[in-house]
């Protein structure tokens, strides 16, 4: 038993990479992929790993590490692959030296994402070998196999994961690490310099590689038949295979695919001929179904199975057999429990002050502060993607100006997101004479994904001290006037208010940096010496309270509005925002 471990898919990918002799890993955190690198950091005596500022940088660094001869991995969530798509497509041309694996995690059902996209389409578009594990043991095995196949076919391998594979735990057996070391590096301009003359040759060569990979796909063990009955055959991959096994049971036959690009069409043809009715069970797009039908094989897929949202056994059972399990129900309804900014969150004070400003548009970004859009603050107008706040704000401000509107624009972005892709946007604002106000919410950590270091925190993933990016200096270096850069404490409403008023009144681009650590952060010595983080609580003097609910309108989850208004002592951190909005001086800070 002692060799068996219960691991999440993410932990298993990290373990697989470690066992495969990985030398270099780089990633940007994003749910559901984050724990891959966090787990790799536990093996830091044997390998190097880092948080990159964004996914494109992470993948490029991994490509460089691979060309230098080391086995390398980049990890990201599905939308991160959009950011990294530029190097990804051309890496399929250059190929690799040390094995290169891209672990890309889709989020069907959008548990923690701004969109739902099926990244298997990237494998087709970029012509990448793709592996799809369906549980944690496969996540480990396929990661190891990925490095081997990457070297064998001279091709980056995409390891496609989904939320339920990433975050479900199942049993994994450990093996020893193979110390493969770095392969020798040889300068090879025709292989690695993708000017058109070389790239055209590589493009043609890619067709040969595709044929070789397809041949492997048709013969490899991870694309396996489980022949039982002849009535129903099921082709499936990833976690959908697990659902299918529960729904179709031991009577059906299965073709379980571990390698889904190139598809094993010969094997599929052979399987199809053995069963009377063929189902393709897959989450999101009809990715496999389309290719199977194109090959002239009849199958049932998205005509019954939903083409969006997460699948589960209920959905498949109902779709295929029209069966539903008997359930209990109640006339009473549970009130929704939407996520909210934490009690003591430094973003609350800023958003409260911002929500009082009239005639503004607020472009938002991706992070905990996206919750600024929730009631009662409702202080955001837009959220699209990482880094979009500043650039969208710039475009919006230009149009308001051109149409003689006096509407002003405030862009709101977190520290990690600013480093990710907000800096280039801010250059657009400063260089092209923008007029928006950009607010960098610097809470000293990457919050939403669970506290990863970033270039502003002064620590690396491997726990080493690093030189922090100086945000005000950076803003100056890209053309922001010194007098237009404000640094404020977001928990001091008057300070935030004054900075917003001054910046909004200017006809020049401005930056406001709100600087206070995330309330959930494990504070560093530097945090403790830079900020007053001593424990405090706020209490309401019931004699003074007139129940005006101004404090309730800050949206703090520690404040409860019933017959009386009270503050939950356990969750209150004494941030004092409620005390500042109370018109009757009824809220006091106590030790």
């Amino acid at each position, binding site marked *: *038993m002692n060799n*068996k471990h*219960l691991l999440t898919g993410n932990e298993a990918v990290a373990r697989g990479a470690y066992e495969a002799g990985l030398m270099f890993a780089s990633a940007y955190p994003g*749910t*559901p992929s*984050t724990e891959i690198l966090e787990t790799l950091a536990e093996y830091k005596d044997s390998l190097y790993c880092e948080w990159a500022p964004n996914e494109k940088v992470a993948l490029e660094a991994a490509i460089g590490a691979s060309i230098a001869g080391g086995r390398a991995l980049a990890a990201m969530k599905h939308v991160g692959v959009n950011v990294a798509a530029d190097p990804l497509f051309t890496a399929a041309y250059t190929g690799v030296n040390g094995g290169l694996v891209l672990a890309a995690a889709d989020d069907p059902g959008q*548990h*923690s994402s701004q969109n739902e996209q099926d990244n298997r389409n990237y494998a087709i578009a970029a012509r990448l070998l793709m592996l799809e594990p369906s*549980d944690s043991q496969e996540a480990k095995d396929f990661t190891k196999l990925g490095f081997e196949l990457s070297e064998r076919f001279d091709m980056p391998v995409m390891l496609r994961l989904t*939320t*339920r594979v990433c*975050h*479900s*735990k*199942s*049993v994994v057996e450990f093996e020893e690490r193979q110390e493969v070391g770095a392969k020798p590096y040889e300068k090879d301009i025709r292989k690695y310099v993708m000017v058109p003359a070389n790239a055209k040759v590589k493009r043609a060569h890619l067709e040969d590689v595709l044929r070789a990979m397809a041949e492997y796909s048709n013969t490899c063990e991870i694309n396996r038949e489980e022949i039982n009955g002849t009535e129903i055959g099921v082709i499936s991959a990833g*976690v959908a295979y*697990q*659902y299918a*096994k*529960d729904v179709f049971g031991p009577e059906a036959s299965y073709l379980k695919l571990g390698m889904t690009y190139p598809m094993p069409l010969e094997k599929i043809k052979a399987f199809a001929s053995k069963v009377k009715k063929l189902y393709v069970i897959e989450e999101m797009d009809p990715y496999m179904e389309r290719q199977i039908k194109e090959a002239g094989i009849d199958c049932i897929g998205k005509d019954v199975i939903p083409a969006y949202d997460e699948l*589960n*056994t*209920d959905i498949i*059972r109902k779709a295929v057999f029209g069966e*539903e*399990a*008997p*359930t*209990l*129900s*109640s*006339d*009473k*309804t*549970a*009130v*929704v*429990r*939407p*996520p*909210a*900014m*934490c009690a003591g969150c430094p973003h609350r004070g800023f958003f409260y002050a911002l929500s009082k400003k009239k005639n503004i548009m607020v472009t938002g970004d991706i992070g905990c502060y996206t*919750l600024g859009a*929730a*009631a*009662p603050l409702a202080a955001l107008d837009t959220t699209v993607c990482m880094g979009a706040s500043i650039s969208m704000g710039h475009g919006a401000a230009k149009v308001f100006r051109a149409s003689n509107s006096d509407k002003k624009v405030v862009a709101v972005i977190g520290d990690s997101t600013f480093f990710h892709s907000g800096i280039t946007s801010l250059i657009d604002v400063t260089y092209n004479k923008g007029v928006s106000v950009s607010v960098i919410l610097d809470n000293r950590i990457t919050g*939403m*994904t*669970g506290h990863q270091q970033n270039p502003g925190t002064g620590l690396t993933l491997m726990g080493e001290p690093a030189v922090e990016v100086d945000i005000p200096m950076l803003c100056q270096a890209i053309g922001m006037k010194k007098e237009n850069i404000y640094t404020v404490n977001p928990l001091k409403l008057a300070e935030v208010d004054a900075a917003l008023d001054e910046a909004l009144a200017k006809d020049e681009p401005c930056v406001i940096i709100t600087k206070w650590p995330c309330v959930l952060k494990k504070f560093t010595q530097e945090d403790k010496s830079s900020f007053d983080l001593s424990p405090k609580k706020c209490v309401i003097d019931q004699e003074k309270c007139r129940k005006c*609910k101004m404090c*309730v*309108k800050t*949206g703090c*989850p520690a*404040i*409860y*509005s*019933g017959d009386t208004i009270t503050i939950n002592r356990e969750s209150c951190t004494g941030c004092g925002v409620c005390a500042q909005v109370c018109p009757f001086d009824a809220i006091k800070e106590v030790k």
Partner: protein
Amino acid sequence: MSETKNILLVGVGGQGTILASKILSAGLLEAGYDVKMSEIHGMSQRGGNVSTQIRFGEKVYSPIIGKGEADIIVAFETMEALRWISCLKVGGKMVINDHEIPSVPIQMGVAEYPEGVLEELASKADVSIFKASQIAEELGNPKTMNIVLLGALVKALNMPHIDWEKAIRDNVKKDFEDINIQAFYAGAAQV
């Protein structure tokens, strides 16, 4: 061995559902079961409702539990028991912490915490209702509420052949081993 059993732990972010499910899975794994456990990370942690699903048996496929499939639901908060009732197998059991945590709309006074939830659930299913939070507080550490509920769950599962004390010791910090074991037995005594 046996057919697959389904356990659902539901609550509010920060209540310790994940540690409880980790200890449960460790015990089951040690006893030789195939175990799968699924949870959702990310946005839901910020005060939203959370769920952890554990399936175990000889061979487990899907890591998630469907509607009407849970043999036991452990609700760390009262209203969450109501939210997940459709997942309970008809004839299944609910272990419920008699403890209300209002959600943001309730705190803001725009919605009301539903009344009579416990009576409603008791009329629909086999329930064990007790004040796990209070028991943990009386033991001297309110955070052990999750282990009080784990104790009740394990009792309801009726698997005395598993070394649960070891599973707890392996998964909590040394200084908190004894208090957690006390909490475990205090919870077991409630079922």
